[in-house]
Each structure stands twice: as structure tokens, then as C-alpha cells.
């Protein structure tokens, strides 16, 4: 064992692993003694200078001191734990997630440490943050997140890496699509998984999943549908009967995940389509906003059933996802019109019904959808046009929110600055103008919440319910599983 004088003095993590644990404890004690010495002297000597005078103590004495200190610490911890256990059983409130505390440095440090332990690269924050949303992460799509990814033993499965990149680039969008893609990637991960010896599948697999989920969260914040799916996966893993062999367990898991997608997305879509089509009559003018796979399905099914109606697609920048909906509907042969959201109130006198898709339904009845949903719902409510929201039951979540600020996803501000293909009469802000002017910020919101009084009815596979019945459905579903 090297003497303290020759032990390396800079205590960053890379070097620390080369020291033995005894050396680490040694240095820790010495540092503590220095601090006390400094307090008396009122000066700040650097570490190497402070260590010299302490070498005189013999090894035996140091070991005895250390043991005494360890006993004292252990006793203190035991007493603290008993206090804490008593305290914890009283206050066990819901934990506030770290992704809405981006302005709290302590929380962020903890989160960064956790990511490092899981070997997941962390995304760098953007340069120009909007002050109103300083509590949320504001990233810019500058460098690829997979630049620093490792390929060691505990590396993330390539299917997950591919999925993460697809999310980050926007290749896979829409809550149903993201959830289904997640399930298929996890199925791949499970099939390729080999339980290491001495470990149990149900426990170790979950620890394999955690870094994968963190990585996906870094690429793009998890959606409500993905959260629901992950909860289901974890439940399935813990419910594996103990006697089962690994190959059997893996097959069973994969089957249950595929079942989840089939039941909650495909079959639910059929049921919702059946209910919603009863609400569309001949001569209707239906207004939809943006792109929702479920709403597109409902309209196509209604058209195939022979109902004569026309559709007005409302769209908003910067995603302009309504154009995809427009194409799908025109292909089927539905008569369509297209406006931007600022003209929604202009065209509203023509509209008889509004169908909206949802990203998620919150427990207090608010509808979380892509930004602009609330604008359309508001314009419809003013003119007395009924607003019907179609949403699968697995997207209901226990969160509560009253405005769009507390929890949202801030997209890349450069998306608003990009030039369209057409030659606009007034040019959009260029990158240089945005970068140069300090007081100019650009905000790209992804979601907004619609109050329940704008919504007339929610159609789920369980039937047609009012917006306020969401917690009832959640309760029923949690009792079922």
C-alpha cells in the first residue's frame, strides 16, 4: 500500500477507481482534518501542502481511528434510519419528476449522475432558453446524441438506439406509432436477452430496461402512451411465475407485449371507430386538427360505410402535420378543405362537428393534445359546435394539470426559423438574426391542454364518456390488472 504522500491527490472519478477503498477512506479522513485546520488558520492551503504534516501517525493508530469512526457513523446512521422510517410512513406523497425541475441544480445533478451510471449519454441544453419555461429542458437539435455512445458489455441494445434516433429526428411521430414502435423494440430486446448466471430474469431484465428507457427519454421526452406501455411491461416482468424457464418466460413476455398493442391500439381503434361513426351523419362538415391516426381511421371508416360528409383540416406551424391527414383523406376520396389555425374562426360558421385526437387525458378532465388543439376547441365552443375527442383508454394518465406551462415539451426553436419552400412575401427569421439578438427568443411548444368545458364528449373503447369521467376509467382499469 502506497503512503499518503505518493498517493494521487486529484480526486476525480477516473483516478478514484484505481485507488483501493482503504486508500480512499484514508484520504477522506485527511481531508476532513485539513478542513478543521483551515478553519483555525483562516487560510486555504492546497491539498498537497496540507497533507505533509500528517504523515507522522503510524498505520496502526490510523486503522484504530478509522474503525472508531466507522462504528460512530454506523450508529448514527442506524438511529437516523429509524427516525426516517417513522417519518416516511407518515408523509409518502407523489414524487415530482425531475424533467420539470430543470432549473433546480441539485435535482439535475442527481439526474445526470443516474444517467452516467446507466451509461446513457446526456443531451446538452440549448443556448437561448425562454425564461417562462426555465423549469423545462430546452434542447436544440445540434449534435447527435449517439456521438458518445459506448459499445461495452452493458451497452444499450441497437434496436433501442435506432428507435431513439427515429424519435429524435421525428421519423416516428404520433402517440400510437411511438408506443407500437417502443413495444416492438422492447420485444427485440427481450428476445436477444440472455440471463447472466446467478441472476434471475425477472429482476435483471428490469435493470436492463432502465438504461434503455432513460436513453429514449433523452432522445425525446416520453409520451403518455409510452409511459402507460412501460408500466405494463414492468408489471408483466414482475408477474413471471418463479418456476418458469428463461426461454418460456421470454416467449410469454413477447406474446403479452404484442397482445397489449393489439388490444389497446388496434382493437380499441376499431371499437372507437364504430362508436364515432354513429356520430357522423350525411351532410356533415367535420373539422379536424393536425394529424391523429385514430381520427383519420374514424373518418376513413365512415366514408367507406357510405356516409356523405366533407372535412376541413386545420393545420398549424411548424409541424404542419395536417398535410399528412389531408393526403390520407383525399386518397380515400373524401372532399377536403384546408386552412391554417388563424382562419379557424373564419371557417367555423360552416362546421357542424369537430373531431379531435388526444395525446393523453389527464385525471382532472383536461385534454392534452398537440399545440393548437385548444384553439380549435375554443373557436368551436364559441359558436356552439360540438367537440368530440377520440382517445384510447390506455392514454389516460393520473397526472393533473391546469395550464400548458407546468409540463410540456419544448421543441427545437430552429424549426420556426426554417424557410419554407415557397417564396413568402415577408421572410421568416433567419438563424443569424435569432443568434445575434440577445433579447429575441423563439418558443416552440409541442403540447397544450384543453379545458373540459370545451369538450362535449370523449369516445373511448369503453364507450362515450364525459371528460370528467377519466379518473373513473383509470380506477376501473387499475382494478382489472
Amino acid at each position, binding site marked *: 500500500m502506497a503512503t499518503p504522500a505518493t498517493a494521487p491527490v486529484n480526486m476525480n472519478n477516473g483516478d478514484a477507481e484505481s485507488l483501493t477503498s482503504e486508500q480512499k477512506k484514508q484520504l477522506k479522513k485527511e481531508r476532513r482534518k485539513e478542513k478543521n485546520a483551515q478553519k483555525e488558520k483562516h487560510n486555504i492551503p492546497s491539498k498537497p501542502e496540507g497533507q505533509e504534516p500528517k504523515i507522522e501517525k503510524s498505520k496502526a493508530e490510523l486503522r484504530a481511528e478509522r474503525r472508531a469512526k466507522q462504528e460512530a457513523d454506523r450508529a448514527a446512521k442506524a438511529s437516523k434510519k429509524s427516525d426516517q422510517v417513522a417519518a416516511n410512513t407518515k408523509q409518502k406523497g407523489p414524487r415530482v419528476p425531475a424533467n420539470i425541475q430543470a432549473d433546480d441544480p441539485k435535482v439535475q445533478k442527481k439526474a445526470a449522475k443516474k444517467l452516467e451510471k446507466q451509461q446513457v449519454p446526456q443531451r446538452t441544453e440549448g443556448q437561448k432558453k*425562454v*425564461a*417562462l419555461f426555465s423549469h423545462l429542458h430546452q434542447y436544440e437539435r445540434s449534435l447527435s446524441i449517439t456521438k458518445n455512445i459506448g459499445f461495452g458489455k452493458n451497452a444499450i441494445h441497437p434496436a433501442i438506439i435506432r428507435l431513439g434516433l427515429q424519435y429524435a429526428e421525428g421519423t416516428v411521430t404520433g402517440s400510437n406509432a411511438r408506443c407500437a414502435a417502443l413495444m416492438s423494440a422492447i420485444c427485440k430486446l427481450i428476445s436477444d436477452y440472455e440471463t447472466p448466471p446467478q441472476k434471475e430474469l425477472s429482476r435483471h431484465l428490469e435493470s436492463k430496461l432502465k438504461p434503455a428507457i432513460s436513453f429514449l427519454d433523452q432522445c425525446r421526452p416520453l409520451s403518455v402512451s409510452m409511459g402507460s406501455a412501460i408500466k405494463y411491461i414492468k408489471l408483466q416482468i414482475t408477474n413471471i411465475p418463479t418456476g418458469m424457464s428463461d426461454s418460456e418466460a421470454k416467449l410469454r413476455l413477447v406474446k403479452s407485449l404484442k397482445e397489449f398493442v393489439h388490444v389497446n391500439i388496434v382493437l380499441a381503434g376499431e371499437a372507437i371507430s364504430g362508436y364515432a361513426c354513429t356520430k357522423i351523419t350525411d351532410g356533415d362538415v367535420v373539422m379536424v386538427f393536425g394529424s391523429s391516426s385514430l381520427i383519420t381511421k374514424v373518418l376513413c371508416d365512415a366514408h367507406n360505410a357510405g356516409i356523405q360528409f366533407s372535412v376541413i383540416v386545420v393545420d*398549424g*406551424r*411548424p409541424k404542419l402535420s395536417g*398535410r399528412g391527414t*389531408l*393526403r390520407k383523406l*383525399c*386518397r380515400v376520396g373524401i*372532399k*377536403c*378543405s*384546408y*386552412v*391554417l*389555425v*388563424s*382562419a*379557424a*374562426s*373564419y*371557417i367555423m*360558421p360552416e362546421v357542424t362537428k369537430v373531431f379531435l385526437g388526444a395525446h393523453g387525458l389527464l385525471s382532472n378532465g383536461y385534454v392534452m393534445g398537440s*399545440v*393548437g388543439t*385548444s*384553439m380549435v376547441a*375554443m*373557436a368551436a365552443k*364559441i359558436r356552439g359546435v360540438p367537440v368530440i375527442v377520440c382517445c384510447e383508454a390506455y392514454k389516460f394518465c393520473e397526472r393533473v394539470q391546469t*395550464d*400548458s*406551462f407546468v409540463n*410540456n415539451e419544448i421543441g427545437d426553436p430552429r424549426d*420556426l426559423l426554417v424557410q*419554407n*419552400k*415557397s417564396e*413568402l*412575401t*415577408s*421572410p*421568416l*427569421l433567419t438563424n443569424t*438574426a435569432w443568434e445575434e*439578438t*440577445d*433579447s*429575441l*427568443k*423563439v*418558443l*416552440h*411548444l409541442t403540447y*397544450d*391542454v384543453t379545458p373540459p368545458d370545451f369538450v362535449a364528449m370523449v369516445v373511448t373503447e369503453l364507450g362515450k364518456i364525459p371528460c370528467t369521467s377519466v379518473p373513473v376509467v383509470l380506477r376501473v382499469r387499475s382494478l382489472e390488472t
Partner: protein
Amino acid sequence: KKMEQFLLDLKQEQFNGSYDLAYKTINHLRKLISQTRWTHAQELMNTIKKEGKKMITAQPSEYVVGNMVRRVLKIIREEYVRLLGESEESANKESLHKMLTAEGNERDDHTKPLKELKTTVIEAVNEYIDEMEASIHNISAQAIEHIHSNEVILTLGKSRTVEAFLKQAAKKRKFHVIVVEGSPLYHGHELAKSLASKGIETTVITDTAIFAIMSRVNKVIIGTHSVLANGGLKAVNGAHMVALAASHHAVPLIVLGAMFKLCLLHYSDIGGSEATFNRLASPQEVLDYYDGGTEELVNVQIYSPTFDYVPPELVTLFISNIGGNAPSYMYRLLSELYHPDDHVL
């Protein structure tokens, strides 16, 4: 000739906002007064009416042109009455006696030739032009009364009046401005750039995010194209959505507009060839030909309205160059600006 060029510009919508148009119109009318031959006031008014009708039919959705024509007619009437030696109030007062004894005397006829009429009318028109030029300055001088520190102000698109208003307030107070892009022309970006260059904290948002942001906004300040007789607005596309969101969150909506924007007309949603309120711009800005011209999208109807009607219930306050008013009072100011006989040209 200049007149034909002006009419062509009107038809092709080649002007820079309502102030620019109003200025050009009134200069035109002044030239008309000074250069044409006329003997008495009635002849002059007929000439102006004829020219005015031509201009209005070239672009019926631009109310400012009609406003200018009617204002000039009112100026002529006023000057005529003043020169005859009678006070303006007695000319306007409608007594029962006058109504019953409709004689058609000289005063109502406007046919008495007066030598100084030309010079006085041109003087009055010049005064009015000066007032118009100073209107932006007068409005922004009231800025400091309405904006206080640390406020979050929302505005839409690009209005020269709002720009001057906010810049004037920024000289003394520190506040935050959120500018809505204003599709489909995205003028909001220019306004944001201009405000940020003066050091005002500006954030640009898309028009989809208006409802989401509105809960944090203290005031909404917008400009308008015209003010209708009932106190409603004919504003840029998207203003109605902003007004609805503001009223839902109980945020006051302040409208800035000079007095030349106040017009006699009311809202009408007649469509087709008789449409005078709104005009549909090129759909290129909404869905360009590259995407919209493909075979599958070729039957899609695309709407790109230029104006929005905002009903007076959604407006909290009007600030014009003569001070602040409630929308319910605007109809009264009409009587000062225009004469009832000129309502129909």
C-alpha cells in the same frame, strides 16, 4: 395618368398598410380640389363623389378609401358653412322647425359661389393631413399610461402603431413582449426583430400556442385595419382567435388605431361577388403549389382570408390619437367625422 396608376395599385393591393393608403388617397383628393375647375361647393362635392366611387369600386374591402372621401366631403361642407358666416353647430342642429319647413334654401344647397372656398378647403385638408401624420406619435405618447413594469404583453402580426407604442413605453419601463407569428404572412417575425433590436425582451410564438400562452399574458395590444361603426374591428387574420383566447382568460384587449380608421360601415358576411368585408388572398401562402398541386391534393379547397371580424364585446379599450374610448362610444365619434348625407355616395 397618376389617377389610373392609383386605381391600378388599389386593384392589385400594392400598398403598405392602411396609413399608407389613407395618405395617398387624401393627397389625391387634395390634388383634385386644387386642379379641377369648379364654381361652387356642390359641383366640387359631386366631382369628389364621382372620383370616390371609382376608387371604392376598385377595392371595396379597403374601407380607408371611403373614409377619406367622406372626410373630405365633410370638410367641404364645414368650410362652406363657416364662410357663410353661420356657426357650425347651428348648421348641424336639426330643429323641428327646419324639418317641417323644408325650403331648400341656399345654406342646404351649397350652390353659392364663394371666392375663398378653395383656399380654405385646401387649408383644412392640409390640417387634416398633418393630424394624420402626427397620429402615430400621439398614440404612442399615451403608451406610458397603459404599460407598467414587468408586464407580459401579447401582440399579433406587424402594426406600425403598436411598434411605435411599445418602443415608446420601453424607453421608461421594462416589460416582456410575446409576438404571435401571424400566419400566413408571418409579419410577426419582422416586428419581433425590430423590437428585440431596441433591447425589449421578445419571444416569438406560433399562432397555435396562443391559448396555451394566454394564461401568463397581462395585456393584449393589437392594431387594426379599420374600426366599424358598432365598435367592432376589421383586423388582420388571426385577431379573432386572439380576442377569444383573451376573453376566456379575462385578459384585457387594447386596440390602437388612429381616427382615420373609423368607418361608417357595419359587419356583413355576404360572400361571392358582393363581398366587401373580407378578401381571400392567394392560397400559395397556406399550401404552396409544390405540395398542393399534386394529383391527390388538386381538389382541396384552400382558404386564406385577409381580415377577421372581432365583435365589440371582446374589445376592452380603443386608444386613438384623441385619447382612449370604450367600443360602445365609437358610434358617437362618427358624427364628428362624417356628415349623414354622405353615408351613401
